[in-house]
């Protein structure tokens, strides 16, 4: 079939202007496909980084045991003890699991924590806060505290506290000031303000404080173990699979972030579906364009097809010539469109540097290979009808033309 390829190539190169126009049409379709892929992918990346980029991708919490229920010999319930609102269960052997979890593929950082609630007081001013005790050195393992610090340092010492800008404003706090933190267990600690962060998230900036794990042990009466292990992954889309692996490896109740993000996932899926529609329309445009151009080409070449058939070219040969012509046009249009798309995406900031107010285009999500492959397949499919029509040309009638 090398010879059929040669003829197809000759047909493609014979009329350069017509081929250039056709390839340009295909390239525009591929360009749209790539542009949409980069935009939809970048947008999803942007939304995810803004919503779940600073949260734990996998969380392990100790399972609470059910409160005891007393039942009389006659089967009557004597008393019911309601579960407290504060988690009290601890992962006593967390230290044993940490190295194992850290060794799991795809895990970027692990942060053992003690969480609870309390009241932060400065003089007569009091604010309710959520307290997170983290290991010094792992302050930025999950939330990028280092990156959000506007004053002081994210480094936690045993008597230091870090809190958000909103809370600092409400309590009129300045670095180095002394504060009282009373935990829900009624334990009070006197801490020094070591740093103020600003994430832009009001709830976090106004109600969450960080202390060292040692301080948290005292505050919440957890002499060993932790209440929670937070895990960050290199690829947050791998959270479900990694959570399953950790669960199988440790037996702990590891839960992916997606379990509590159904609405976000639905929104992202809807966005992806929109992208698929747009890309499908781009492909349909390509298919229609190639099919109509090849139909015209086969009509114009009917006498030649008749001669080929008279000289001993079979129907299969004719079909192969025109399908190959379609594939070549698809390949040229696909590669040109992909190159054009790549060049057009180059000026946009990289995925790590998306800025508000600019299109979050992700050049790495251009789906270049997929675009070229689908275009070639689409062009081949589009050329089948014209090719079959060409193969059915009656040599006698065609030569007579």
């Amino acid at each position, binding site marked *: 079939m090398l010879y059929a390829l040669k003829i197809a190539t000759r047909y493609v190169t014979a009329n350069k202007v017509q081929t250039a126009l056709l390839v340009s049409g295909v390239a525009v379709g591929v360009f749209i496909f790539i542009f949409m892929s980069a935009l939809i992918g970048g947008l999803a990346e942007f939304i995810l980084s803004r919503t779940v980029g600073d949260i734990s991708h996998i969380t392990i919490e100790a399972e609470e045991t059910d409160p005891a229920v007393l039942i009389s010999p006659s089967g009557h319930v004597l008393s019911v003890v309601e579960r407290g609102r504060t988690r009290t269960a601890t992962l006593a052997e967390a230290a044993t699991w940490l190295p194992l979890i850290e060794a799991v593929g795809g895990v970027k950082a692990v942060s053992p924590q003690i969480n609870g609630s309390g009241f932060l007081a400065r003089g007569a001013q009091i604010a309710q806060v959520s307290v997170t005790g983290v290991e010094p050195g792992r302050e930025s393992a999950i939330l990028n505290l280092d990156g959000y610090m506007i004053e002081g340092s994210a480094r936690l010492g045993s008597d230091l506290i870090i809190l958000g800008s909103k809370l600092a404003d409400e309590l009129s706090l300045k670095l180095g000031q002394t504060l009282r933190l009373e935990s829900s267990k009624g334990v009070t600690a006197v801490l020094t303000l070591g740093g103020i962060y600003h994430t832009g998230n009001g709830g976090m900036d106004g109600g969450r404080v960080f202390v060292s794990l040692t301080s948290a042990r005292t505050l919440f009466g957890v002499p060993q173990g932790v209440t929670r292990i937070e895990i960050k992954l290199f690829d947050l889309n791998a959270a479900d699979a990694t959570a399953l692996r950790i669960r199988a490896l440790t037996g702990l109740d590891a839960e992916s972030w997606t379990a509590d993000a159904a609405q976000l996932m639905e929104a992202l899926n809807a966005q992806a579906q929109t992208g698929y529609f747009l890309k499908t329309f781009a492909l349909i445009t390509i298919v229609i364009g190639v099919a109509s151009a090849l139909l015209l080409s086969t009509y114009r070449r009917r006498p030649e097809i008749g001669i080929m058939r008279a*000289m001993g070219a079979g129907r299969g040969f004719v079909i192969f010539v025109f399908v190959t012509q379609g594939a070549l046009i698809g390949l040229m249009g696909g590669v040109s469109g992909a190159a054009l798309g790549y060049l057009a995406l180059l000026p946009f900031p990289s995925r790590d540097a998306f800025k508000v107010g600019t299109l979050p285009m992700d050049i790495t999500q251009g789906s270049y290979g997929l675009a070229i492959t689908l275009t070639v397949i689409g062009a081949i499919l589009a050329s089948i009808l014209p090719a079959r029509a060409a193969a059915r040309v009656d040599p006698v009638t065609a030569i007579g033309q």
Partner: protein
Amino acid sequence: MSVLLEVQDLFKTFGTGEAATRVLRGLSLTLDVGEMAALLGPSGSGKSTLLTILGTLMKPTSGSHNMLGHDLIAAEDRELTEFRNRHIGFVFQFHNLLPDFTALENVIFPTAVREGRETASARARGRDLLVRMGLGDRVEFPSTKLSGGQKQRVAVARALMNSPELVLADEPTGNLDRVSAMQVMDLIAQINRDEGTTFLISTHDEKIASLCRRQIVVGDGLVTG
């Protein structure tokens, strides 16, 4: 001489009902190996239809058609295509060269399409044929840049490329001036003499017909002389 092809009681009708036109009406004909025959007759006598049927490009409505021991009426399209490629060459009135190809590429087409590629031996034979046609300096010329006579000689070379037993020529000189026409006929006569290729040449030109050893006259769908 041995028989190359034989057709018996050929009928060919185009259309149906009142619009039906019967072009061949029981035509019978035998051609021997190495013959050079002219096919004469007025327009509408059935010459072109007969050539088309002999060239396996069309089947008759009824009758028998045998060539080299093959029953060409019973053969499928694929078999006919292969048979045509190996055993029959065509020369048309309007040369019908492939416009996007050079003279040599046109000539070697029948071999290349059979072998799936342009082999060195095919190129050598094609080049040799073009030299014999007096076109040694036009081998790599685009076919569209050749004169009418040159195009027709390329078409003759193409018809001979696969060394077919039969070459069917439909008014091969009809579109040429007298000098070019005689050049083409001289070439055909020379090949017929040297290689024993059978030629059946449809023509209106008595002078061209007189160059053939046999004249077959067709009239009203039958061989009349």
